[in-house]
C-alpha cells in the first residue's frame, strides 16, 4: 500500500455553491425560531402591521445571518490529501479537523440533491471502514472535475494495492424505460400510496369551507353511480399513479456496474435526486430474489442484497436491481456476485405431511377471530368463518413456495410472505444456524430451520418452516466448519 508515491495536494475549498447550501441549511434550522415572535403576535390576535413587521424582520434577520454564515462556513471548510490521509477541516466558531487514513476509506459516493443538480455540482460522501460508530465525511458541493479528482486520490492507494491500472467499471445491466414503468405498475407500494391519498382527501374535505366539498362531489358524480364506489376507484387509480411515480423517481436510470478489479459493485439511480452508491462485494452477506405478488405471474423479480456494516442508512438492505425477468437472475448473479451464484430452481420441498400444518398455521388466527365474531353476532356472524378458506389456501401457497437447496457450501432457502423470496447465503456468511421444534412439530417429525446473517448494524434471520426434522439437522451439520474442512481435505487428496 505504501509503495505508491504518496498523494499530496494543497488545501482546497468546496465549490462556491457550498456557500448557498450552508446558508440554506442555516435557514432551515433557524426559520422556526425567527418566525416565532411574529407567529406569537398572530396567535395573540394582533393581526396587523405589527405582526407582519415582526415576521418580515425575523425573515430578513435570518436571511442576512444565513448568508454571512454561509460565506464564513464555506471559508472555514477545506480538505486536502497528504501523508497518506484525507484531512477535512470545518467549523466557523468551533473548528474541527478530521483525518482519515486512506486505507480506511471504504467508499466515495456522489450524491446530487436538487440544488446541486441545478448548479451542476455534486456532493461527495466519504465513508470509513470498520467501527459503525464513526460518521462519514460529507462535502456538500464539488465541481464534477474536483469530485472525480478527489475520488481518484482517495482510492488510488487501494487500487495500487491490488496492482491494477485504474479501469472503467463494467456495466452489468441497465434498467430500460419499459421495465421502469413495469416496475412501478407491479410494485407493492400501492397500499402505502393509497393510505396517503385517502388521508389527503380527508384533509382536503376538512379544509374546504362549508359544504363546498359536498357540492363539488355532487357536481362531479351522477346519481347513477354510488359516490363511495367512485371515490374508492379514484383513490385506487391515483395511488397507482403515485406508486408508479415513486418508483420512477427512485429507480430511473438504474445502472449496476462492477469495478474493473471485481471488488465493488456500483449502483447509480434516481431522476431528481441522483444516488450513487458503492457496495464492496466482500461485505455482501446474502442475496434475495423477491418475486412480488403482482410480479411472479409475469415471471419478474427484484434483486436485493443484505450487506453488513457500512453506513447506518445504506447497509441494511439495498436493491441490487429493481426488476428483471426471473430467468435472467442467475446470469446477473454470475456476473455481479459470483460467490452467490447457486441454482435457484428445483429446490427440495418440505415433506408432504407439512402441507396440512402450513394450511392450519395461516388459517388459525383467522379462525380464532371469526369464531369470536360468530359468537358475538350469532346468526350472521358465522359467515366470517368462511374467511378461513382463503387463509388456508394462502397457507397451501406458502407450502408450495417453500424449499431449500445446498450447492457446495451455499444455502438456498425459498419461502413466501406474500412475495415469494429466494435467499442465497454461503456458509461463510452465516452468523448462526439452528432449528426449533414445537410440540406439534415433534409429533410429526418436523422442525423449523433458522439461519442468521449480518445486515446493517444488526442481523437478518431466514426461516424454513416445517422441514423434515432429520433434514434440518443434516443441513445444519453440512454447513458446519468441520464438514467444510473435511470436504476441503478430501478435495486436496
Amino acid at each position, binding site marked *: 500500500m505504501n509503495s505508491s508515491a504518496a498523494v499530496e495536494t494543497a488545501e482546497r475549498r468546496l465549490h462556491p455553491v457550498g456557500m448557498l447550501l450552508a446558508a440554506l441549511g442555516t435557514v432551515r434550522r433557524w426559520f422556526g425560531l425567527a418566525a416565532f415572535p411574529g407567529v406569537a403576535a398572530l396567535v395573540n390576535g394582533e393581526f396587523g402591521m405589527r405582526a407582519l413587521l415582526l415576521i418580515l424582520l425575523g425573515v430578513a434577520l435570518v436571511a442576512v445571518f444565513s448568508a454571512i454564515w454561509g460565506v464564513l462556513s464555506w471559508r472555514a471548510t477545506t480538505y486536502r490529501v497528504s501523508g497518506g490521509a484525507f484531512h477535512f477541516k470545518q467549523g466557523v466558531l468551533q473548528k474541527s479537523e478530521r483525518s482519515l487514513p486512506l486505507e480506511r476509506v471504504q467508499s466515495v459516493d456522489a450524491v446530487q440533491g436538487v440544488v446541486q443538480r441545478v448548479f451542476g455540482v455534486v456532493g461527495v460522501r466519504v465513508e470509513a471502514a470498520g467501527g459503525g460508530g464513526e460518521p462519514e465525511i460529507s462535502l456538500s458541493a464539488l465541481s464534477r472535475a474536483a469530485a472525480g479528482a478527489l475520488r481518484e486520490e482517495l482510492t488510488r492507494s487501494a487500487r495500487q494495492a491490488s496492482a491494477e491500472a485504474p479501469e472503467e467499471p463494467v456495466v452489468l445491466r441497465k434498467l430500460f424505460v419499459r421495465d421502469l414503468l413495469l416496475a412501478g405498475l407491479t410494485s407493492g407500494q400501492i397500499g402505502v400510496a393509497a393510505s396517503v391519498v385517502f388521508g389527503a382527501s380527508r384533509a382536503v374535505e376538512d379544509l374546504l369551507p362549508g359544504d363546498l366539498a359536498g357540492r363539488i362531489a355532487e357536481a362531479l358524480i351522477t346519481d347513477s353511480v354510488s359516490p363511495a364506489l367512485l371515490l374508492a376507484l379514484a383513490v385506487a387509480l391515483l395511488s397507482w399513479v403515485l406508486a408508479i411515480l415513486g418508483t420512477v423517481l427512485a429507480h430511473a436510470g438504474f445502472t449496476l456496474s462492477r469495478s474493473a478489479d471485481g471488488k465493488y459493485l456500483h449502483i447509480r439511480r434516481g431522476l431528481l435526486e441522483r444516488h450513487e452508491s458503492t457496495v464492496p462485494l466482500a461485505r455482501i452477506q446474502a442475496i434475495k430474489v423477491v418475486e412480488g405478488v403482482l410480479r411472479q405471474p409475469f415471471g419478474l423479480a427484484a434483486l436485493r442484497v443484505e450487506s*453488513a*456494516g457500512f453506513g447506518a442508512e445504506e447497509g441494511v438492505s439495498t436493491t441490487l436491481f429493481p426488476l428483471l425477468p426471473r430467468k435472467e437472475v442467475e446470469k446477473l448473479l454470475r456476473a455481479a456476485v459470483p460467490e452467490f451464484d447457486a441454482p435457484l430452481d428445483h429446490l427440495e420441498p418440505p415433506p408432504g405431511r407439512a402441507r396440512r400444518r402450513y394450511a392450519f398455521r395461516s388459517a388459525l388466527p383467522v379462525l380464532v377471530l371469526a369464531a369470536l365474531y360468530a359468537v358475538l353476532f350469532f346468526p350472521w356472524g358465522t359467515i366470517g368463518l368462511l374467511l378461513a378458506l382463503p387463509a388456508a389456501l394462502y397457507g397451501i401457497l406458502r407450502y408450495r413456495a417453500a424449499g431449500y437447496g445446498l450447492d457446495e457450501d451455499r444455502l438456498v432457502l425459498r419461502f413466501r410472505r406474500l412475495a415469494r423470496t429466494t435467499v442465497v447465503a454461503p456458509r461463510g456468511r*452465516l*452468523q*448462526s444456524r439452528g432449528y426449533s421444534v414445537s410440540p406439534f412439530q415433534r409429533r410429526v417429525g418436523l422442525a423449523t430451520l433458522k439461519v442468521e*446473517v*449480518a445486515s446493517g448494524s444488526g442481523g437478518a434471520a431466514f426461516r424454513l418452516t416445517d422441514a423434515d426434522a432429520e433434514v434440518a439437522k443434516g443441513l*445444519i451439520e453440512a454447513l*458446519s*466448519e468441520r464438514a467444510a474442512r473435511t470436504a476441503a481435505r478430501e478435495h486436496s487428496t
Partner: protein
Amino acid sequence: MKSEPGQRLDPRAKLLWRVTGALQAAPILAGGAFGSYALSARADVAFYLAVLPVLGALALAILFVFVLPPLLWRRWRYEIRPLEVDLQRGLVRVTRTLVPMARVQHVDTRRGPLQRRLGLSTVVFYTAAGPNEIPQLAQKTAAEVRDRIAELTRTADEL
C-alpha cells in the same frame, strides 16, 4: 451432530428464576385479589365466580414460581466446542442454535444485582448478527467459559 449439548446451567439458576417469577407474579396476584374483592362487593355475583380471579392469579403464580423454573433448567444446555458454540433452550418450542467460533466478535460476562447475590453470571457473546447468551452460570464457570470462547475465537480466526 450430538443429540444434546453436554453442559447444564448452575442449579442455583432455578432459585433465581423462582425469585424473578415471584416478582412477575406479584402484580398479577394483586390484580386477581382486587378483581375478586370488587366482585365480592356486588350482591348479585355468586361466591364461586368472585373467587375465580384470585384463583387464576394463584395458578399463574404457582406456575411461575414452582413449575416453570425446573423445566427451564432441565431444557437449557450448552457446549463449547473447538469450532462452535452449541445452545439448546426453550420451554414449549425447543430451539437449538450453533454459532461458529470464527463468527464470534467478542465475549463478555455480565451480572445483575440478583445474580451477584447468588454468585451467578451470564456469558454474552456477539456475532455480527447480534448477541447470544448463556445465562446463570456459577461465577467461576462463567469466567472460564468466557476465556475459553475468547481463546477459541482467536485460534479459529488464525486457521
